[in-house]
């Protein structure tokens, strides 16, 4: 499980995070929403071990993440595929960087290509693939890394609305069959409610948790859920929390 306890962070004199606490139980999905620049990406980077917080503590399965990489699979908004590797070789980058057996990772990735809608593209170069495919490949790389904790930083942020909705439903289906613990950072309230079990709303900088909204629907969820009355009222609660204490996100 993931524990973030009174996380604080400053870049020089700029306070980015101010008292962020939350837990994510094993196998649960938590989404962080908030206005631009509220420090939600910094939370993920702290959990990934890339940034040491200036205050508070964070741990995954009881082990502190401060200065310790390799406990969670992190995926940034950009797909960050290596241009000099074909799709299949890109899928094993995370596993290889962790020092796992390359052939086993290859076999595992190969088995998942169809599930990720990438069958037939194993030997393609990244520049030959569409944005949606590249993003799926980046997700595939994240899964093949073989870590139980996934940290997703706006994984669909760079995609068009239709592709994004497709990928959200597909990811929800995929995760329903697995047992990952996930933290997702997003601007998209629908995305947060559609995928997560709990949505945390962060205030503008310096970020603090201002609301917690549960999303108690069983997985996998139908895409029509977004028009459900209960879903809409939860969405309204999140939007209201986002509206507090500052100008709208821009």
């Amino acid at each position, binding site marked *: 499980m993931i524990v973030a306890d009174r996380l604080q962070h400053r870049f020089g004199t700029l306070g980015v995070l101010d008292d962020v606490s939350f837990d994510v139980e094993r196998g649960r999905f938590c989404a962080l929403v908030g206005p631009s620049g509220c420090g939600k990406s910094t939370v993920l980077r702290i959990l990934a*071990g*890339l940034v040491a917080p200036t205050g508070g503590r964070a741990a995954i399965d009881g082990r502190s993440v401060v200065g310790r*990489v*390799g406990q969670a699979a*992190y995926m940034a908004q950009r797909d960050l595929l290596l241009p*000099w590797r074909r799709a299949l070789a890109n899928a094993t*980058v*995370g596993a290889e960087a962790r020092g796992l057996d390359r052939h086993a990772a290859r076999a595992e990735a190969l088995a998942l290509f169809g599930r990720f809608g990438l069958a037939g593209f194993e030997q393609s*170069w990244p520049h030959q693939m569409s944005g949606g495919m590249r993003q799926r490949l980046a997700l595939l790389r994240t899964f093949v890394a073989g870590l139980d904790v996934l940290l997703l930083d706006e994984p669909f942020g760079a995609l068009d609305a239709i592709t994004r909705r497709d990928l959200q439903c597909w990811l929800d289906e995929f995760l329903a069959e697995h047992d990952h613990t996930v933290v997702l950072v997003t601007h998209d309230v629908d995305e947060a409610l559609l995928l997560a079990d709990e949505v945390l709303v962060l205030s503008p900088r310096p970020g603090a948790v201002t609301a917690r909204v549960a999303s108690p629907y069983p997985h996998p969820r139908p895409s029509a859920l977004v028009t459900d009355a209960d879903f809409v009222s939860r969405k309204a609660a999140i939007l209201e929390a986002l509206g507090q204490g500052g100008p709208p996100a821009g």
Partner: protein
Amino acid sequence: MRATLRAAGPPALFVVALLALWELWAGRSTSRNPVLPAPSRIWRAFRDTAPLLPGHLRTTLTETGLGVLVGVSTGVLVAIVVSGWPLARRVLHPLLIASQTVPIQVLAPLLVLWAGFGLAPKIVVVALVVFFPVAVSTAAGLQSVDVELVELIRCFGGGRAVLLRMVMIPAALPGLFAGLRISLTYAVAGAVIGESIGATSGLGLYIARSQRAFRYDQVFVGVAVVTLLSMVLFSLVSVLSRVLCPWQRRTDRST
């Protein structure tokens, strides 16, 4: 096949046309003007001195090859140092520029004086012209590495060795080859200049001797062999670059 013909046809035709014009123009005035011999006379000179050429060619090729090897290794080393340590960049930058401002024609006699008539001074000259473009474009490749890519590898737990293998080397390769392609055209010329100043064998020596004997037809033979050698080496590097950097072929041709 048709694509090759279409690519190679126009330049080949152009060269043939130039040679024909040259033959027509120089052919009439050859008796009076031996400074510009006609292609047919150059061809005769080639056949007459052909037995001499392989030995000279071998010498020049050895010097160029070893010089390129030394130059590329030095260039890559300098690129790694310069892109890894900002202080090194500030210290080395003026020296690197200065090393390129001394004309080879000035430097070569000094090197011959210091290192004798053997291979060594020519290897130094070739290495000197090769290392700079290689260092500059390899450093550019290394410095253009996406910080987020480095972070991605790092957050999966990849250390320096993994980073080098998965990110740094592939990122630097295209730049290295770009620099090598530029410098190769000067590399053979560097060896030839070195040889023309003091040598016991080599195409530069062949050209210098022919010049002193006023055999300008033979000078042109030497020039032609040097040109061909440069072009062969250039294509070799292009092929090598395409084999080692397959992702660089952005457009996949269907034919």
